[in-house]
């Protein structure tokens, strides 16, 4: 089961805060310091059942690729920068950071933090942890983050990162979950080590089965990590996960089969958390290939899909209809007033005729690897599209190798995005001409022009206008169908308490449930 790594992100506000920090160079307290809640209880063993985790999972931070690895990493490691529950960048091992010109970035390393082994976290450890992902022979999934980095050096308690060109987003990149701070020996980290400076100490770990951790008694965050022990279990089968929760063998599960959410709620044995965010499911069409090179065909398909039914049946209602817009309601410049595309077979037929076709037959390649429920979503799409004279022939692909062999290989397939809090980031990575994840191979001159202009536009209104025009273009001329925004849905035992604000940044409270939640 693959997660697509690195396609999620921190929120816009987080980035802004970071940007503010450029000038202020001040210290920003983690969110929890401010959002003081009822005093959490200490104690208990928190057991998490995840629909991820393979026996082939490795230890190498550069290769963490699924929710299991992510939660396990968050349980034992800290990073330079945390994304707090509000989606803001917050200091973690980096006490503060600044960049006078966007080219040189200075991170001040927190003092007095120690690894589980007892060794103090030093600047060298941080540099080695970053360098693990950098260099020609690096095999990290985020190697490209470091492509523009020309130098990483120590300056007292600071780590100085030099880029070949200014990048205001660099601090934001450093919050990536791969960048765990690990102890170094001779300037290199041992990628097979589980030693970290995070909230819990690894007791035992069997890849693909379970990890047991105990609370780090010396954890530097005194108001975090409320459980005595944490156990993370890989339970790949969704029925097994449900059963484990219902029979009290675990306290938290992810990925609930939408079909059963209602029944689980009715049982009244668990709390269901449904966290809306910018994550969305997409059907990219290769805009270079016939028939998708004709916008009328794309529009026909966009009107031939029943978005509300998708939300109801594929998400079990835990999500929202999207208007083929990768920018979500949580985004700052979200275009709420666009003409909504409802399910309209006549309109779809009209566009087909405009394209000079009476009927259309296309293959849609899906696998549940694309997103959970993708096969059903495809079936539903095919069924509704048939009413518009469009024959969608569903091709189920093996989950195994989906991202290699189908995504960006087949002209019409299923995929997902974690969403981007920053419009520019979303568009740059997914929609600009030639972007590496432009999975529809779409190119629009006006769009590209607006994208560059918007970056440097200071006038808020003009900027809004530009971004909204871009959304309009993507929605009506773009080559992806985005039927819905999906919530992160998880279920907990009834005695699990979460803070009022649960992060929408990543699943499971931005992987941080282990250190942010507690038992009643």
């Amino acid at each position, binding site marked *: 089961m693959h997660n697509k790594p690195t396609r999620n992100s921190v929120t816009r506000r987080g980035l802004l805060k970071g940007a503010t920090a450029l000038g202020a160079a001040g210290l920003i307290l983690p969110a929890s310091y401010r959002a003081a809640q009822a005093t959490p209880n200490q104690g208990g063993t928190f057991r998490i059942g995840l629909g991820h985790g393979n026996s082939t999972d490795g230890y190498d931070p550069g290769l963490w690729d699924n929710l299991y690895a992510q939660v396990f990493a968050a349980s034992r490691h800290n990073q330079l920068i945390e994304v707090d529950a509000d989606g803001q960048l917050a200091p973690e091992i980096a006490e503060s950071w600044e960049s006078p010109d966007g080219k040189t970035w200075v991170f001040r390393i927190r003092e007095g933090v120690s690894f589980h082994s007892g060794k103090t976290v030093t600047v060298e450890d941080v540099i080695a942890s970053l360098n693990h992902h950098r260099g020609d022979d690096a095999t990290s999934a985020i190697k490209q983050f470091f492509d523009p980095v020309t130098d990483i050096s120590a300056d007292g308690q600071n780590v100085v990162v030099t880029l070949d060109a200014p990048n205001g987003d660099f601090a934001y990149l450093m919050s990536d979950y791969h960048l765990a701070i690990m102890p170094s020996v001779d300037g290199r980290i041992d990628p097979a080590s589980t030693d970290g400076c995070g909230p819990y100490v690894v007791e035992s770990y069997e890849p693909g089965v379970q990890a047991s951790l105990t609370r780090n008694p010396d954890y530097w965050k005194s108001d975090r990590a409320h459980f005595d022990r944490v156990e993370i279990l890989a339970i790949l089968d969704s*029925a097994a996960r*449900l059963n484990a929760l219902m029979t009290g063998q675990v306290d938290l599960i992810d990925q609930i089969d939408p079909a059963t959410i209602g029944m689980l709620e009715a049982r009244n044995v668990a709390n269901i958390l449904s966290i809306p965010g910018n994550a969305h499911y997409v059907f990219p069409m290769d805009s270079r290939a016939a028939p998708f090179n004709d916008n009328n065909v794309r529009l026909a398909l966009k009107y031939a899909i029943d978005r509300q*039914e998708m939300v109801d049946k594929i998400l079990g209602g835990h999500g929202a209809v999207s208007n083929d817009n990768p920018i979500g309601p949580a985004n700052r410049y979200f275009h709420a007033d666009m003409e909504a595309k409802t399910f309209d077979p006549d309109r779809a037929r009209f566009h087909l005729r405009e394209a000079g076709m009476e009927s259309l037959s296309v293959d849609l390649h899906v696998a549940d690897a694309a997103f959970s429920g993708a096969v059903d979503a495809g*079936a539903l799409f095919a*069924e509704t599209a048939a009413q518009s004279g469009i024959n969608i022939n*569903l*091709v189920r*692909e093996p*989950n*195994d190798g989906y991202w290699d062999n189908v995504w960006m290989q087949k002209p019409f397939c299923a995929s997902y995005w974690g969403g981007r809090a920053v419009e520019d980031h979303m568009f740059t990575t997914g929609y600009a001409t030639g972007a590496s994840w432009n999975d529809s191979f779409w190119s629009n001159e006006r769009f590209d022009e607006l994208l560059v202009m918007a970056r440097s536009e200071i006038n808020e209104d003009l900027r809004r206008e530009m971004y909204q025009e871009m959304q309009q273009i993507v929605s009506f001329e773009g080559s992806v169908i985005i039927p819905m925004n999906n919530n992160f849905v998880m279920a907990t035992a009834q005695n699990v308490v979460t803070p009022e604000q649960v992060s929408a940044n990543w699943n499971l409270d931005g992987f941080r449930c282990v250190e942010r939640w507690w038992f009643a």
Partner: protein
Amino acid sequence: MNVLIFLVLAIAASIPLSYAFRAGLVRVLPHEKALVARDMPLTAAFGIMVIGVYVIVAFAAPLLAPFPERAVVGSQFQPWDSTYLLGTDRLGRDMLSRLIYGARNTVGIAFATTALAFVVGALLGIWAALRGGWLDQLLSRFVDALMAIPSLIFSLLLLTIFGTSVLTLILVIAAVDATRVYRIARSVSQGVVVMDYIEAARLRGEGNWYLIRHEILPNALAPLVAEFGLRFCFVFLTISSLSFLGLGIQPPTADWGSMVRDNATLITFGDMTPLMPAGAIALLTVAVNFVVDWQLYRASGLKEQG
């Protein structure tokens, strides 16, 4: 508890039904066949009746099903009512219609797969037994090696390599099953090959093809038919196991194995939905085996009383 009562009632009802069915057969069939029908045990009558119903349902699916196979006709998981006799599935498709179409697809695919496995496996097995020597050794050792690889994982590998269309599914499962058929065909044929009539045919100068078709196959048929029945049923199970691992029949084609898999989580909440396709598979398996048992018993000539 309800399920139990339902089961008991169903069994109780099936006894007079099978009895009546057998009586009907005896009346309808020509004399010779009627004699055979009269002698068959009730279980076999039940089996034939069930198989007959399945075949009719499979052929007449479009006439019988109230809704099309793929049509989304309602909302999710609607309860049983007069419109949707067995409710709707997770996408709002009519459960009964999918069950009916499922008969066609499931039985059709299983039959094609099994038939292919038998043509290949049985022919090779008989040929190996007939030829003996190095050819037999080579084939048998190779088949041994293939059988030493867990079949489900092997199918998984092959399907990932060759894709998951219905055709490849049939070919892959047939290939894996053919190894099992080969073993049985070979051992049965080895028993036949030593018979004098084979020697006589060889001395007459008959070719291998004649020997296989006329001399060995008819005599190896009974155990092969029995195996056919079992294999036929195992194909459903293999398909549903493959669905479980993410590689089954292509949706939105209705197929019982995948239907069980798709709705399996519901069992957690005591929902009956997945029981229907699973029950359909089980009923057919039991029916086929009842008939096979009877045929084997007839072929063995073993005199059992009662």
